């Protein structure tokens, strides 16, 4: 067993454990943290596949940004676990059917005699000096520039919509325009008056 294989098995074991804990952990914050662990190990596996850009982007976007906001929400909510667990047995048949179906589909695609992974041609080894970051950038900004820009515009619309939904002026807020604050000068607020000290009566 080479060192690479050892790392692969280690990462896979951690990934499966973390993914299982995401759905079995009782505390939602622990579940979210296990999801973070799962993302990090998945990124490690991707880097082993020489997809270093995707691996780092997974950590940067999902772990660095999305999961932080996720944790914010989960930590601030008062989640009633008992209520969430209600009706577990009545939903179980539906859930189990869907899960089994997915496993069967994946098994068909990955291991079956028709589409097995062995049939797919092995990708040629990357030449020296090949950078998949550069290659992805070239593809995104030349061949797929319109779909890419469309996706960007859709995201922008989503941002504007989200801000428009949550932006509200508070009625009794004490908001002060920072521009006005910066403009304040001492003379506007403070007046020094000459006030002679009391004289001793003689």
């Amino acid at each position, binding site marked *: 067993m080479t060192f690479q294989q050892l790392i692969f098995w280690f990462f896979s074991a951690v990934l499966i454990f973390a993914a299982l804990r995401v759905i079995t952990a009782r505390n939602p914050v622990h579940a979210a943290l296990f999801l973070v662990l799962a993302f990090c190990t998945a990124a490690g596996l991707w880097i082993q596949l020489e997809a*270093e850009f995707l691996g*780092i982007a997974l*950590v*940067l976007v999902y772990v660095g*940004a999305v999961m*932080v906001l996720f*944790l914010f929400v989960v930590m601030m909510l008062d989640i009633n676990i008992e209520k969430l667990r209600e009706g577990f047995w009545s939903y179980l048949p539906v859930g189990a059917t869907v899960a089994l179906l997915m496993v069967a589909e994946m098994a068909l695609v990955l291991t079956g005699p028709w589409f097995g992974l062995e049939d797919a041609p092995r990708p040629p080894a990357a030449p020296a000096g090949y950078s998949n970051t550069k290659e992805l950038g070239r593809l995104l900004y030349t061949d797929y520039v319109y779909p890419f820009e469309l996706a960007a515009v859709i995201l922008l619309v989503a941002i504007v919509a989200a801000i428009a939904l949550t932006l509200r002026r508070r009625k009794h807020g004490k908001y002060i325009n920072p521009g006005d604050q910066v403009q304040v000068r001492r003379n506007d607020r403070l007046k020094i008056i000459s006030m002679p000290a009391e004289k001793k009566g003689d």
Partner: protein
Amino acid sequence: MLDSLLAYPQALLGPLWPVVWTLVKIMLIVAPLMLCVAYLTLWERKLIGYMQIRKGPNRVTFFGIRWLGGWAQPIADGLKLLVKEVIIPAGSNKFLFVLAPVLALGPALAAWAVIPFSPELILSNIDAGLLYLMAMTSLGVYGIIIAGWASNSKYAFLGSLRSAAQIVSYEIAMGFSLVGVLMAAQSLNLAEIVKAQQNSAGAFGWFWLPLFPLFITYLISGVAESNRAPFDVAEGESEIVGFHVEYSGMTFAVFSLAEYSAMILISTLTSIMFLGGWLSPFPVSWGLLGTGGFGWLFAKIFFVASMFLWFRATFPRYRYDQIMRLGWKVFIPVTLVWIVVLGAWMQTPLWIWWK
């Protein structure tokens, strides 16, 4: 010489050799770094002392040698923190409570893997180095969030939300500054970024000049990112309390270690991306003065790190809403505009920084 010395352990360890050798190299980076962190705390107190016309720590010394006065101060501080009791709050999550400082320190150290100290001295010369750095610096926020939550205290929790929001906000401005750097250097590899700044003009060939708004944005965002004054609302004892109120002893010290190593990391990155890394500020034609080397990088890191201390001694603390305003309404628009300007500029013959 080195190869013949290494041949024996290589034969002895066999397949384990790459692991051991990498660990040795990691230790060679982390151990001096920790020493630098310790003496940065001393330099901070000394420098701020000089700025306020006093001497700073000058008593604690090794073996009673007078002229070494003050030099043992960081060691004494470390020992003191090491033997203090670690108090774990009642009802807190013990595992996460102890894990949080480690999570704060870990990414700040992991980022050093891709730092080029000189043209040959890099632990891992990876292609997507800049992306890796962004990923690592974005992981530091977990230590803060988990610390606040695991403390089982409302004050710590609210403080952690505040600090985390601040860090996540400033990360965007930092990321956009790095976009400018990678546009100008045409590479994500940090060694390539330094090499792209090499030309006959010496210091004027570095990226601080064409990317000046991004340079300033990056530096100030870096101060905010490492929770340093004037953005240190986490430690603002006068108004609010931060995410580490429940921490004591060594667990608190690890948070401090994380803060100082993040500071050194930001200084290093600023030096590498905007101030020419290991390059000499003088033109290459000047002979010995013009040759690059680790010494120049160290001098630049020292300069930028001293600026962090200078800021602390000079500026009053920002109010929280003004911190957020500065990040979102000033820095992000500035960087966005400068990226567009840069893109246009690079298409014209007026762009002289890249051949």
